[in-house]
């Protein structure tokens, strides 16, 4: 009974798995589902690099037990693009040169995704606050904030057209 039976939807696909009870959501994503876009780093929820979206909210997947995700929906960075078309956040990160070493970027983009879903037209200050829990040691954040601001404009324009 130390394994848990999990029914988990990741990027729209339903998975039924049996995993050890101490596995984190991060362990399941990377080791069981081989979705290695989500990165492993501090394992203390301090750095935000492992951020994914769980039922619409950003969470540090290293701190959440997989067993607590029973029946829930997860979106990882792999779930953003539609076919070959990148998500507006991904496009903006490329365009603004917001990526240097790249290691924090999946977590950064998922943090921004959950934030923009709730706050479609944020101020720069609000964006900075939103990514306070997601650390980048390369860029100094300017270009990351630029990219998130640009993406928010595009997303809300798309929203108006739709």
């Amino acid at each position: 009974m130390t394994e848990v039976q999990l029914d988990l939807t990741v990027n729209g696909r339903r998975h039924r798995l049996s995993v050890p009870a101490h596995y984190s959501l991060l362990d399941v994503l990377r080791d069981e589902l081989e979705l290695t876009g989500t990165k492993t780093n501090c394992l203390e929820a301090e750095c935000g690099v492992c951020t994914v979206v769980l039922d619409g909210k950003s969470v540090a997947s290293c701190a959440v037990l997989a067993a607590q995700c029973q029946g829930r929906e997860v979106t990882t960075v792999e779930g953003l693009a539609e076919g070959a078309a990148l998500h507006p956040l991904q496009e903006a990160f490329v365009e603004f040169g917001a990526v240097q070493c790249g290691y924090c970027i999946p977590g950064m983009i998922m943090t921004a995704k959950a934030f923009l879903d709730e706050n479609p037209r944020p101020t720069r200050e609000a964006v900075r606050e939103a990514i306070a829990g997601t650390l980048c040691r390369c860029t100094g954040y300017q270009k990351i904030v630029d990219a998130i601001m640009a993406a928010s404009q595009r997303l809300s324009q798309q929203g108006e057209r739709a």
Partner: protein
Amino acid sequence: MKLEFLAPQTLQDAVTMAKARGDAARFIAGGTDLVIQARKSGTWPEAVINLQQIPDLGEIKGSGQNFSLGSLVTHRQIEREGRFAGALEALRESACVIGGHQVRNVATVGGNLCNASPAADMVPILLCLNAEVALAGSEGRRVVPLASFIEGPRKTKRAHDEVMTEIAFSAPAQKFASAFLKGGRRRAMEISIVAMAGVVSVSRDGKLTDVRLAMGAAGPKAIRLTEVEKFLEGKALSKDVLEETGRLAAAAASPIDDVRASASFRRHLAGVYARRVVELSWNRISEVGNDRSAA
């Protein structure tokens, strides 16, 4: 490692499971303290009992003066709670500095109180509001003042089979305002080296009354600064009064030296934050819309 994961659907089942397992089992809410401590120390409990599927523990209830926070209410919920905008702003200010969005989206107020870190940021303001916590266990239900619930670093009055169900408080009856400030080495993602919460009211003749101040991270547990509160009762705010406030608050601190700050710096900050919190909440009084006497 043979961790077992138990998923009760009712409060009663959670209590029964905890009673049957004894000390080897721990409740888990958001897991932001439990999972990370277990992984870091390499020692997991034999079982964790998930509280997240128990109905009714995740709501903020109340209006006007009387409120209750379900133990599974997240810091994110508190930070965004419209009913706490204005006079009870310090609740939102305390919640919104706990980790980043990723932590606040899952970490709960019940977990913050039960974990009983001396630096737990929700404790000072809840002490100011004379909060009481409700516990449900195999011996029944009881209500304990938060001030006596937390006994020391990571030590509480909770028996191992007791689930904290809610945290209840009443706001002051007269017009009041509140404030919370915390000091760390940087502005985000920082464990408090001193945390200060205050609730103040002002009498008709413009004097401070019913002042409540509580300080966290500057001793083994967060405490009300009763000496400072007594001193401020009936005073008008002035430079001298603020100075004495700082002196008394620093004297009440019993801080430790650790990697985050020296004891003497913590003591200094205790004085500074006590002054600022009193001044800030006094200034806010004119802005808050809770003047029942004027209605």
